[in-house]
């Protein structure tokens, strides 16, 4: 199998496709630079492998290669974007012509944006990227997971264990005359089980990963934990009671429940929605939007995390952006276009799903900083409420600020104690208000295991979230028990 990381991105694209940085810069200078505010060329080569084991049989084994180039031209608020999946000089020239045709239609004299050029990080150089690890080793792990999940409880009927591995090589040439590349490994292991008892069935799921080698899953018996957690969750839900309905105090556990931040405030603080004035947070910089216990950051620079990047997909090095500091709104996440139009600095949040998509402001790893409180004490402080520790997906209406996220493992809190598990329920709130209701913040900040994928405008990108245990006074819980 190819080891894409054994060569630099510059050499990779020039060896394989005869497209050199010099050629890209010439194209930008000649075709694109005139009367534009910004332009770039993005080359991408991606190998993806997917293995799925079901009923102890390999149900899916697949390998995909995709490659392509995206050319972008911008003037004022206009973007022209063209892409091709045949990386060649003639296709790049044609794409550049198409991209420019729209952007310079108005003929406004533009000044090329000069980015704050910083150094790219080195957050995930791996001796053995997961894509090159032998299939036999990967399949052996999936079989062991299947056995471990079944051994954990006799009520487990179905086990689906999957491992996906990916490697992307990119090269970006910007109009301000510099070229930067990145090689990005990514892997994710997932275990889903169905437990069955007396005709009742329930599902449990656990997983994790990051920009890490395959051996990560073998360290500290991580894979065993994924299998037993999925099993525990499914079996627990067999005896879940109806979830309560209405507004109540909610305690969120550490880690993945940080999806609250992603939905409640994260999307609303992306630059594009604020520039257009369609976010519920537009024009609120410097205002209090959360309890003073709350500080939230977006940090793309944490080594080996799923949401981390050495540079974003416009070539800007990622950073650590403080979004909310002690309750006050302090920053937006920006790509180059929106930073330029809002007269702010790019924050390294310009991301795209692939060469087929123009970049936009996106999150990386978004989390709340730890507070002072003991998590057990937080639970004890609640007379009656809900304790939610695992979630499925969430969604937000940027403009009204209303957001939801769905609990997949939650319990009643009765008299300060965690009692019966409840069925899955959606929690709903209003972004600019929800974090004002944070009354306790634990000292147990945890980042999620590395499973998040965020969708926006039809583009999916890997992200991370994190949260310490927190208490929210007054969240609406969408159960069925009135």
């Amino acid at each position: 199998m190819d080891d894409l990381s054994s060569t630099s991105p510059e050499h990779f694209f020039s060896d394989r496709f005869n497209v050199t940085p010099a050629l890209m810069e010439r194209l930008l200078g000649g075709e694109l630079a005139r009367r534009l505010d910004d332009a770039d060329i993005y080359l991408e080569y991606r190998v993806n492998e997917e293995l799925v084991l079901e009923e102890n049989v390999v149900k899916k084994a697949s390998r995909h290669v995709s490659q392509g180039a995206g050319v972008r031209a911008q003037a004022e608020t206009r973007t022209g974007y063209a892409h091709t999946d045949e990386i060649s000089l003639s296709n790049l020239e044609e794409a550049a012509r198409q991209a420019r045709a729209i952007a310079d239609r108005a003929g406004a004299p533009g000044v090329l944006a000069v980015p704050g050029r910083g150094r790219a990080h080195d957050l995930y150089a791996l001796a053995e990227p997961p894509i090159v690890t032998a299939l036999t080793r990967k399949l052996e792990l999936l079989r062991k997971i299947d056995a471990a999940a079944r051994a954990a409880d006799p009520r487990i009927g179905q086990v689906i264990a999957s491992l996906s591995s990916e490697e992307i090589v990119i090269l970006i040439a910007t109009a301000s005359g510099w070229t930067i590349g990145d090689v990005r490994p990514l892997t994710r292991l997932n275990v889903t089980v169905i437990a069955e008892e007396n005709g009742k069935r329930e599902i449990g799921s656990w997983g994790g990963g990051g920009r890490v080698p395959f051996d990560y899953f073998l360290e500290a018996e991580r894979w065993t934990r994924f299998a037993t957690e999925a099993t525990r969750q499914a079996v627990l839900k067999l005896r879940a009671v109806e979830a309560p309905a209405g507004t109540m105090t909610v305690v969120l556990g550490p880690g993945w429940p940080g999806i609250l931040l992603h939905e409640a405030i994260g999307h609303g603080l992306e630059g594009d929605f604020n520039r257009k004035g369609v976010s519920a947070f537009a024009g609120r910089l410097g205002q209090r939007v959360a309890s003073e216990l709350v500080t939230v950051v977006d940090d793309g620079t944490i080594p080996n995390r799923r949401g981390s990047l050495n540079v974003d997909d416009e070539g800007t090095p990622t950073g650590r952006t403080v979004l909310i500091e002690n309750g006050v709104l302090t920053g937006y996440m920006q790509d180059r276009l929106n930073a330029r139009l809002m007269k702010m600095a790019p924050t390294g949040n310009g991301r795209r799903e692939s060469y087929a998509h123009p970049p936009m402001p996106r999150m990386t790893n978004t989390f709340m900083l730890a507070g002072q409180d003991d998590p057990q004490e937080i639970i004890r402080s609640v007379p009656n409420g809900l304790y939610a520790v695992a979630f499925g997906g969430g969604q937000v209406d940027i403009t009204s600020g209303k957001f939801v996220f769905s609990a997949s493992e939650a319990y009643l809190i009765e008299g300060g104690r965690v009692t019966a598990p409840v069925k899955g329920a959606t929690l709903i709130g209003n972004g600019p208000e929800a974090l004002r209701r944070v009354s306790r913040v634990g000292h147990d900040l945890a980042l999620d295991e590395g499973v998040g994928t965020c969708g926006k405008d039809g583009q999916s990108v890997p992200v991370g979230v994190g949260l310490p245990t927190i208490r929210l006074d007054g969240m609406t819980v969408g159960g069925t028990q009135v």
Partner: protein
Amino acid sequence: MSVEALRPELLTDVLGRARARGATEADGFLIEEQHFNASVRLGQVDTVKHSREQRLSLRVFAGKASAAASTSDLSRDSLERVVDDATALARVTAEDLHAGLPDPAELIERVTDLELEDDGAEELSPEAKIEVARRAEAAALETDPRIANSEGAEYWDRRARYVYATSHGFARGYATTSFGLSVSPVASAGGEMQRDYWFSAARHRAALEDPAAVGRTAARRALRRLGARKVKTVEVPVVFDPDTAASLVRSIAGAASGPTLYRRASFLLDRLGKRIAAPSVTIVDDGTMPRALGSRPFDGEGLATRATVVVGDGVLESYLLDSYSARKLGLRSTHHASRDGSGVGVATTNLMLKAGSVSPDDLIRSVKRGLYVTELIGFGVNGVTGDYSRGAAGLWIDNGELAYPVEEVTVAGNLLEMLAAIEGIGNDLVLRDRTVSPTLLVGRMVVAGN
């Protein structure tokens, strides 16, 4: 918007090479497509996107073991690597008794022309396409002074050619076009902002709705949300508008699809032939409707599409199966195989819940106190148990009248109980999307708010 003629011989060569490498059988597809997409915001061009894509995908069988590989690079080297990758993967996967292609005798012989390609219409210039989006947004902005901002309007078109082939010598293809238009205006008043949208999509450009009408509908939808409030937690009848009702139909199709059934991950398991919904409920999937968005002449395994009654008068009459899940369940394929790069799944075509005879206004009038749902958000549907809990926005019904907009509430229940509690079906079915429903009245659900 021309797409170069497909080269089906690339695919047949790859299948032949896979046989030479020891595959006992193989199938695959080749797709080429071209997209154009233009968005306009506040009258100005925002983004214009041109793209061309191609992909060849191969699935090989080594006896009963199988694997897949795909590539977007159609050079000779790359195609050889696809064959190597797939055959190497197949060697390490274990045998699966139910794996294999359908019986070649069952494959479609003649590809019916479902008029899925608009080859008559004159190609519009990029400027003319941008103008379509501009007119739609302008109509939204002119509707009311409270529509002062917009997330924009979008026009898109797509032209694709597809060919499917097997190592038994089968090779058939077809071409499709699609055209679409959407508008997302923002209404504001007294510091409150509400967004909504509307769209039109069609296989033939001439069938797109008038851009100004799409814009005005989007504006009306955003405007009626202004002044939204939360309601008290209560158990009441819930009326789903056609769009939100269609999402319920999609959930039923998901639970009726083969892969979720053989994994025992479906609330419709062991219910074939049994009553699962009110007797007035009939759900049909029909892939043969001319010019429809979900139509296709054959499925992802070369089997002719047809009309399938999934639910007939409240009884679950058919699952949705590809050959593999059919064999696993001891049934026959219902010709619903879909292909992506990594293998075979199940997909519906044109899926619809049949219209009733009551007007949507009369359905609302029949409710003394309840919620009319116009938007659902979130992923709170448990396909294994049918437990249902989603975020909702809409209008409160008071004495049979739409009284005021509602937001920040959830609607919850269980899909099987909701299906049984369908007390009214509207006469307003319009085939404007791949999955459609008329307005539905569900007798009782929990609305959670204050």
